[in-house]
């Protein structure tokens, strides 16, 4: 839209060329364009933010408020009790929060690093190297992307059990280390880098490996950072697989979050703790609070990594 308005202003016939008027028009066009762009972005941001906001609000209200048919969009008072309950409750047979946090960080860290290394060298080979059966291999890899991963779950579960990997970190790291999706993404990125660079590097006496490390990796830094970030988020959010293969002390943070929050012996009515709580229905507000708590680190991570993305981008821009 914004571009359209500017193009209109530009298409005016240039018969009586008036510098002043033209400049003014350009200025107005620019303002109009900016207003439209910001309006559009704000609208999108609000829409993107709304469900997230709802999640946060839900974690700050009481269960009866949440269950009431009229959604509470603007709570009068914020109820931090939900967070307090989550942090203070210690499950007897489940894992502690710190334990699952350590699990998640270890698994997230190791599988991200290993995963990115594997992705880089595989994508490089597929993009730049010539060997027999490369295209066939790539096609087969692409084809596996089309099979729903759920299909693997059962067989993989039996596999890892046979290997005796249950209740370990390995079982959380290895099966999902290779992501064809990211290999494909990075390969596309590598392909974009002009061939002339490669030849230039060869002339400079750079080996394949040197070219990969010194030229390609820096050039695709933004994508690599994105992949790292997405990979880590994926590990952080993994849920079904850890639950299937590991007992609770070896599980991940999302498993901890999605356990039934029925505990806390107190039901919260109107912010006042009243009597003993019965019934085994889970409390959604507590769950929402837990989901918020788990999302927060990711959010912070993104804010920091966003900076890094920008850095990488500007670097590659100057080199281009």
């Amino acid at each position, binding site marked *: 839209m*914004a*571009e359209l308005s*500017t193009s209109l202003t*530009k298409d005016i016939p240039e018969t009586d060329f008036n510098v002043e008027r033209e400049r003014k028009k350009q200025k107005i066009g620019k303002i109009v364009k900016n207003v439209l*762009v*910001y309006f*559009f972005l704000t609208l999108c*941001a609000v*829409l*993107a*933010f709304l*469900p997230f906001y*709802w*999640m946060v609000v839900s974690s700050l209200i009481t269960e009866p408020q949440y269950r009431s*048919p*009229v959604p509470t969009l603007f709570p009068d008072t914020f109820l931090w009790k939900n967070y307090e309950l989550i942090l203070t409750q210690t499950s007897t047979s489940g894992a502690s929060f710190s334990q699952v946090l350590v699990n998640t960080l270890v698994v997230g860290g190791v599988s991200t690093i290993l995963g990115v290394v*594997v992705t880089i*060298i*595989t994508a490089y*080979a597929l993009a730049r*190297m*010539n*060997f027999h059966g*490369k295209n066939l*291999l790539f096609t087969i890899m692409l084809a*596996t*992307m*089309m*099979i*729903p*991963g*759920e*299909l*693997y779950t*059962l*067989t*993989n579960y*039996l*596999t890892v059990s*046979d*290997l005796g990997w249950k209740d370990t970190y390995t079982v959380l790291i*290895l*099966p999902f280390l*290779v992501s064809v999706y990211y*290999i*494909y*993404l990075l390969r596309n990125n590598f392909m*974009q880098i002009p061939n002339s660079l490669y030849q230039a590097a060869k002339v400079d006496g750079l080996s394949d490996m040197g070219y990969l490390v010194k030229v390609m990796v820096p050039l695709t830094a*933004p*994508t690599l950072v*994105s992949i790292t970030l997405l990979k880590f*988020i994926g590990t952080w959010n993994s849920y079904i697989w850890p639950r299937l293969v590991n007992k609770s002390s070896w599980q991940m943070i999302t498993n901890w979050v999605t356990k039934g929050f029925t505990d806390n012996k107190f039901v919260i009515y109107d912010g006042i703790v009243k009597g003993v709580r019965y019934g085994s229905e889970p409390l959604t507000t507590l769950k*929402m609070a837990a989901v918020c708590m788990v*999302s927060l680190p990711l959010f912070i991570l*993104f804010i920091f990594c966003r900076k890094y*993305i*920008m850095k990488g*981008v500007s670097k590659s*821009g100057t080199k*281009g």
Partner: protein
Amino acid sequence: MANPEKNFFAKFGEKCKDLWGKFIGLFKKSEAKAQAAAEGEACTEQCGMIGTELTKREKFSRFLKAEQGWLFVLPAIILLCIFTFYPIINAFIRAFQQNYNALTGNYNGWGFENFIRVLKGDTGTGGAKFVQCLVNTVIFTFISVPLSTLLALLISVALNSIKALQRAYQTILFLPYLTNSLAMGAVFATFFTIVGTKNHTDTIGIVNMIFFPNNPIDWMQGGTGYTWNLGAVKIPWTKYVVVIVYEIWSGLPFKILILFSSLQSVNKQYYDAAKIDGASKSTTLWKITTPLIMPMISYLIITGIMGGMKQYTAIVGLFGEQMGRDYDMGTMVGYIYSYVSNGQMGYAFAGSLLLFAIIMVITVINLRVSKKRVTF
């Protein structure tokens, strides 16, 4: 009870280990040879086997050089073999076993019965219907993926063109990626739901409040007036709208992230050149920017379609385990799941192979189309 499956796998695993060991050995040898060679030719001279040894070594090093790509992809291939290819082969086998019982491992005979029953919808176990699921999935995907890609492109271009608040917008727009799709599905459901009885309406939902305050639509239930019937297939379009809106919302962050970062990496010289040539902004967008980031767009569309064909959790979040009523909002993966939980693994495997075939066809078409437009 002996489990043939287990034995088979144990053997398979050992074989893999064996092969791996051999591989390692092979390269260790070659390394040793190379070192020996580097240490000096004197040794070979003394041995008196100059000619043959050299050609062999040369041959080998040439082979190594030509095929060193395999070395690069080896780790990925090994992991893929164990955790991806093997399960797929397993699924292939199971799909052709008739009345395969996952619990006991029993089956009676081989054949296409599973496929026939799946396609006919004659599975008789209360699971989803194949044709309905296929139609649902295709419609969801082919509406939501192009729309969200286009929207993501517009947003990325807009983001790229501003300076102030760029970070803030980018951060907020990325937020949906960090949320849990089950939880968010439930949240979206509340936006569209009318809660009430015949005598009293509690709420008509935010969407109705904004767009249809006087004549609210019960989006989440559909019902007689809001369903098109195409033979055996039902199209409850109000529910479709909910799914598509959700899909667009949840698909945006990743697409924006990718498109925006590739926009940023587009060489500024191109734009300067365009400016000098007097190209308008829209011309720049469609004639320069878009073609330059076309590989990324085609990547997003292809993976988006693949992801779309595999959607499941969001539907469960929105419509519950039953995916609507009688799986009328079922997707292809939902179809597979409905039979996994029924214990009818044969249908699940057959269904997933059919899904695989369908996505394969779509991808081939996709690649053909995108090949015409970009050098893939």
